[in-house]
């Protein structure tokens, strides 16, 4: 028996309606992401990547088709159920959105809301930051961290709760090579060592190079893309785990 897919989407269509003109952003999209897969989602701005991510993240209600995330159909889900499902997903946004009054460690601990006792939360946060090379920055406030370090803290915040699905939207935007490597390494390692899957919307070849699969969205239509040769880039020596 095959494991439950992290994401199973069939014939998903989505249209933004306005008084001016309706705009179809997703057209009969089929998508299946299995546990243990890191999938890169590419496409031009406005191609529907973000819409697909927000639907899969239970942040936006689907309009037409079938969407199952972590085995749960998203149709007809109430806000409480969607919120519960989001608790199983690790979100990484383009911006770090760290709480400026909290230290790096406390920001990561915030992700463990009601899940573990405070003492365990602190230990897990420290371990997550250590894996991202930020062990010595745990007590620093966000404004004492560089942009790359902040994004790494945001990644630690997403992964510390050991989600079964990671959804990331341009996680390496405006990051230097070192930070990008750290961010993608962390997600790659997390996916490789657990039962989780990751779907990353990105324009960044450095991220695409580490993906197991590449999907391309164009005018709302999803297609399986080619694996770039840059996957053997020296920046990402561990890349190469391609199907």
């Amino acid at each position: 028996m095959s494991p439950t897919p992290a994401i199973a989407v069939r014939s998903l269509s989505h249209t933004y309606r306005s008084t001016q003109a309706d705009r179809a952003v997703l057209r009969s999209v089929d998508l299946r992401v299995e546990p243990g897969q890191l999938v890169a989602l590419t496409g031009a701005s406005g191609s529907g990547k973000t819409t697909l991510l927000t639907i899969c993240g239970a942040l936006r209600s689907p309009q037409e088709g079938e969407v199952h995330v972590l085995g749960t159909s998203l149709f007809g889900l109430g806000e409480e159920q969607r919120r519960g499902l989001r608790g199983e997903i690790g979100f990484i946004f383009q911006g770090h959105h760290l709480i400026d009054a909290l230290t790096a460690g406390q920001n990561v601990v915030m992700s463990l809301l009601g899940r573990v006792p405070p003492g365990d939360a602190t230990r897990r946060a420290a371990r997550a930051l250590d894996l991202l090379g930020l062990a010595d920055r745990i007590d620093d406030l966000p404004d004492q961290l560089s942009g790359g370090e902040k994004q790494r803290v945001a990644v630690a915040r997403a992964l510390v709760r050991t989600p079964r699905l990671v959804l990331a939207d341009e996680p390496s935007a405006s990051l230097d090579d070192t930070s990008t490597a750290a961010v993608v390494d962390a997600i790659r390692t997390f996916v490789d060592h657990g039962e989780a899957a990751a779907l990353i919307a990105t324009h960044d070849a450095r991220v695409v190079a580490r993906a197991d699969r590449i999907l391309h969205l164009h005018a709302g239509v999803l297609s399986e893309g080619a694996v770039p040769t840059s996957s053997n880039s020296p920046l990402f020596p561990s890349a190469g785990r391609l199907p």
Partner: protein
Amino acid sequence: MNPGVPVALLQLRRNPRRLLIAVAGLVMSSFGILCQMGFEDSLFRSATRLFTELDADLVVISPQYQFMVLPAQFSERRLQQALGATGVNAVASLRLGVAPFKNPITGINRTAYIVGAPRTGRVFIDPDWQAQLRRLSRPDAVLFDARSRPEFGPVGQLHRRGPVVTEIAREEVQVAGLFEMGASFSADGTVIVSDEGFLRIFPHRHPGLIDVGLITLEAGHDAATVLDDVRRQVPDDVLVLTHAEFNAREQAYWRSTTPAGFIFNTIFIVSLLVGVVSAYQILYSDVMAHLSQYATLKAIGYPDRYFRRLTFEKAWLLSSMAFPVGFLLAEAVYVGATRLTLVPLVMTPGRVVGVYVITLAAASAAGLVAIRRLRRLDPTDLL
């Protein structure tokens, strides 16, 4: 719910200047409300201090009676008629007026409140006051309120050393005893005299007219039933009230007829607004400055109730930082004003708790308004 991180405190501390302004606003708010309540209570309590000491179940007054300094006379016969009602035990009459009292040291006159009371029969609840009435055997004998304003002279000290002779309305009087009541907003000092002494000071007053009638009931009778019966016994040219109704009427005069009530209400509302606006300023700024962070938390599963609780925690912290300072400032004003005016301002535990709750409610209300924006916050805006 909270994973062990004191988010509210850390966020408030993040901007010390903004925190200081908000706390200062709430200090002013709690200080203003405590002072307003203290002065209002003092005014109303002092206005009825004499009347609360009256030993009466029912009180008879003229319909034209306004307040203690502006009473209206009615025939003493009405009290005799009231005696015919079932359940009435005894009646007593009071005559009220104001007259110049000469400071025995400086010779300067100052207006005093004069109470004419019968020497026999129960008039006052306070046993000491009641016992002093027996000293009014001579028409020129008076009892002086030892806690009157000092402008009347050191009458109390002089009396303890020997006889004090002075004048009321140019009539020579001798201080026969002291009682302790305290100045009020309508009387700087009070003197109790006998009926005969009152008519000596106010010779133009008709002996058959009184200002307040006191009725005491026989034990075991229901006041409401007797009240109805007394009302049937006396013509409607007088009002018959319970003692509580009489006190309430006296307070209502101050509350609604004088500017005092309006002024106190205005101070209360302004103080409250200062608190709400100060708290709103920091809580709203805080929400707006953290929209994307809060949206992130919503995206990862934090429910709206977390943000409500976070805001209430901040409101509680702000109130708890501000209230003690406001309380201490108000206490200093209470002590200073009591010394200055001799009108006692008392900080009661109930008022302290009540004003703290009001301060907390003001900050919480500000928080509720401030987080309206959060309820509409859509985490998809982050993507």
